[in-house]
């Protein structure tokens, strides 16, 4: 399939797109209503380009149809239900049929094999709780390849290193942020990377800057591969790097990619940078039609000399939406605000949050300006406040969070960090 003639692939994509639209319109009211509102019938989609006539699906739509409103098969056909943080207090819930899980296993296995992973490898999965869904998908994909898998388990950095060293891990699936932290830890504790069995890093969750990538490869003495995926819905490895490391091949037999202008929504000419929009072609339980990923990307024209004919994208830093990417986990500002509001009973007048990075550690930092409503002369009260907000956020987002309560003047100060300033 990965070497399929592009002409044949377009036929296959059209067939799969049409049957996906037919199923979605038959079984999901949300999709049906969008077609009806536009006065369109799925039969009008006669070429892949005709998809442009259909409206987008946004992240907020997932929350609005919580929990099962976008499922396209009866619940009894669902064998797995995934929950990921959404854009509001309501999470994004996606479902999988038995068939869907098999497809994901194939997709992940294909991506791992393109990165040289083989049955000879010991593969360790280290992700933040916010990406635990991917942990399961990577486990199954790597098992399908035949590698020995050390599945995702939340471990301290020290324990991770112990496993890495003692179990002789050869492939590590992790985020660029975690990999950076690991490299720093090894450096500080004097562990020689050459003494580890680590050969490959599969970097997921966020695009890795060229500088960081070179640094990781040099410090850890490994080769790195990037994978592109969606954390809220279907899963990881929608795009993967081949041995040439020249962009990410999109699994076009399962996804139809488009690059659109984030402002106008118009499809952009090939090679221009815009927002990646994905439509599922084989998903049964949870079809997505023109899903706005918020990821910035552009198509790389021409064929890759690795022989794989799947089209490639360059995945670029910064997003086209206001989501923050913290250790590969997408964090919605609306959800942060809603969580703080739920924890405190109201949203404080002064509230800011940032992605912070220090010594290769990444976390979400929340500043709450003290006001009459929050003020207490008891330190214990304020500590309780900090803890409540912090733990609610960590639970909801699955990333490390630090909460600080500040007075007016400090609150207004420059956070002194070049990272994103939102809130």
């Amino acid at each position, binding site marked *: 399939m990965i070497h399929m003639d592009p002409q044949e692939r377009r*036929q296959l994509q059209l*067939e799969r797109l049409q049957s996906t639209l037919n199923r979605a319109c*038959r079984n999901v009211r949300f999709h049906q209503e969008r077609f009806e509102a536009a006065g369109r019938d799925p039969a009008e989609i006669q070429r892949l380009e005709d998809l442009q006539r259909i409206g987008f699906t946004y992240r907020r739509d997932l929350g609005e149809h919580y929990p099962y409103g976008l499922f396209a098969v009866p619940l009894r056909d669902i064998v797995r239900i995934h929950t990921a943080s959404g854009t509001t207090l309501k999470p994004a819930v996606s479902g999988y049929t038995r*068939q869907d899980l098999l497809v994901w296993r194939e997709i992940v296995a294909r991506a791992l094999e393109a990165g040289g992973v083989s049955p000879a490898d010991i593969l360790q999965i280290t992700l933040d709780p916010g990406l635990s869904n991917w942990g399961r998908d990577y486990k199954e994909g790597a098992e399908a390849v035949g590698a020995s898998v050390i599945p995702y388990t939340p471990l301290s950095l020290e324990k991770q290193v112990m496993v890495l060293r003692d179990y002789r891990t050869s492939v590590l699936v992790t985020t660029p942020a975690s990999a950076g932290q690991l490299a720093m830890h090894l450096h500080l504790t004097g562990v020689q990377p050459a003494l580890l069995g680590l050969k490959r890093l599969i970097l997921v969750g966020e695009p890795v800057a060229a500088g960081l990538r070179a640094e990781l490869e040099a410090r850890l003495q490994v080769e790195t591969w990037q994978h592109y995926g969606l954390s809220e819905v279907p899963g990881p490895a929608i795009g993967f790097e081949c041995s040439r490391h020249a962009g990410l091949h999109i699994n076009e037999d399962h996804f139809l990619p488009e690059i659109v202008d984030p402002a106008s929504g118009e499809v952009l000419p090939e090679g221009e940078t815009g927002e990646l929009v994905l439509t599922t072609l084989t998903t049964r339980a949870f079809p997505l039609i023109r899903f706005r990923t918020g990821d910035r990307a552009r198509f790389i024209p021409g064929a890759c000399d690795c022989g794989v004919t799947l089209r490639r994208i360059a995945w670029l830093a910064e997003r086209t939406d206001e989501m923050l990417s913290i250790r590969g986990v997408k964090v919605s500002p609306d959800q942060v605000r809603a969580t703080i509001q739920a924890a405190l009973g109201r949203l404080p007048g002064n509230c800011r949050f940032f992605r912070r990075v220090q010594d290769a550690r990444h976390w979400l930092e929340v500043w709450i300006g003290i006001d009459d409503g929050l003020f207490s002369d008891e330190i214990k009260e304020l500590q309780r406040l900090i803890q409540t907000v912090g733990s609610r956020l960590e639970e909801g987002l699955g990333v490390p969070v630090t909460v600080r309560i500040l007075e007016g003047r400090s609150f207004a100060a420059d956070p002194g960090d070049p990272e994103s300033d939102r809130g």
Partner: protein
Amino acid sequence: MLRIRNLKCYYGKIMALKGVSLHIGQGELVTLIGTNGSGKSTLLQAICGLMNHWDGEIRFKDASLRGFDPPAVVKAGISLVPEGRQIFPPLTVEDNLMLGAYTRLRRGERQAVARDLEMVSQLFPVLRERVQQLAGTLSGGEQQMLAIGRALMARPQLLVLDEPSMGLAPLVVARILETLADLRREGLTILLVEQNARAALQIADRGYVLETGRIVLEGRAADLLVDEEVKRAYLGKDYRDFDEGR
């Protein structure tokens, strides 16, 4: 080998096929499953030049079949085994078979036709035994074999079958489908339309599920065979409510 895009067929004002796209690769056995009235036979009729009006694109070996009448389609390399066999009862088995090679005989391919007659006789030994018998006196299963044999006599590159199992005993059905699997192994490309979805999926490479004129599923036959929705709708499992107690 065969590529269809956005095929729409009408009976008067009624649209029987609402934009169907499918393809069959060289050497593949592809099955089309669906209930009565889903549009399966309409699709075959359009391919075989039996529909006067259709919109969209049907291409066979990279050439359009638009405007082809049935003989032209046969000449292009597509043979149909029609629903209900439609053999000629008052003619002998041999004459029925020779009729299948009619265009070839007119081209003077006598020797090649004789070889194919031998090939069909080997494929269905029962036809050899009854070669001089009138076709109308054959059993249902034998008539079906004759219909397939007749289609093969045209030396098709694509064999199209419309409900070959209809009205036949399970053992006979198994025998016929086995023959199709053998032909596929020998390199023949086959499009099989069947109501007996399980049997068809067991021998097919890929399948399409047609529902009220639209394709709602496609995939590897092995995957469709274990698909919950296909099982419920076509493999004799019941269909209950959407949430059913959950």
